[in-house]
């Protein structure tokens, strides 16, 4: 299960969170294979909510949140976070990859529009932003 962090205040729409991968501790390829993936969305402040990735549009990751699963102090997720499996996300949109001097990544275009960047440290960094 992917663990995602996002600003859970920014849930616009009916129980929808649209998130994007910001960085990951392991290579993540953004593509249709993520649809149906169960995720735990964390806000970094001890709040958690289960969700399912229900679609991607031009890199957008749509997550349907199960607000009934909202909880705090999720020890299971925390344990996984410690294990280095966390995927941090921003909200709304995966935009084209950004490279910078601080992040000397080499972008690799994948098939069918998938993108992946792997840094020398093995971290994956995908650019992200809010969608309108």
């Amino acid at each position, binding site marked *: 299960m992917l663990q995602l*962090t996002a*600003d*859970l*205040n*920014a*849930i*616009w*729409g*009916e*129980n929808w969170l649209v998130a994007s991968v910001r960085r990951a501790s392991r290579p993540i390829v953004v593509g249709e294979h993520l649809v149906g993936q169960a995720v735990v969305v964390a*806000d*970094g*402040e*001890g*709040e958690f*909510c289960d969700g399912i990735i229900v679609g991607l549009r031009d890199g957008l990751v749509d997550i349907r949140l199960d*607000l009934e699963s*909202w909880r*705090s102090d999720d020890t299971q997720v925390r344990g996984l976070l410690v294990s280095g499996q966390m995927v941090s996300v*921003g*909200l*709304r*949109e995966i*935009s084209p990859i950004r490279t910078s001097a601080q992040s000397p990544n080499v972008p690799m275009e994948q098939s069918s529009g998938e993108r992946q960047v792997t840094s020398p440290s093995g971290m994956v960094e995908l*650019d*992200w*932003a*809010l*969608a*309108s």
Partner: protein
Amino acid sequence: MPAEPPRRDEPELPSTAIVVRGGMMFRETVEQALAVTVQRFDLYLLSVVAHSTQKKREVWERAPSKHTKVRVSTAGQLRECGFELIPTFDAPHYSILLPGPLNLDMWTALDDAFSPPTKDP
């Protein structure tokens, strides 16, 4: 080309209107949230829920999220600190517009404008 955040055409909130930010509102998480909106909108926006009511409970019940702790302020307090409140996305979502990157003075003002973390009001 930055996108425009979708704005609702609504009158300005009265100064007494309750504004709620879900969560503890740590500086780190605020900066993460701001980074997202700068990337997309070229604006420093922080998500809150707000309504013209003066009842905290009424505001929070309108929010989709279920944070166990929240920070509470008013539209008037935020404006006094120089922060504009913009009705964005779907009600009751509002965005606090910060004038620029979050520096220490701005963070102190923002932090002071909200109550300490309190349980779901």
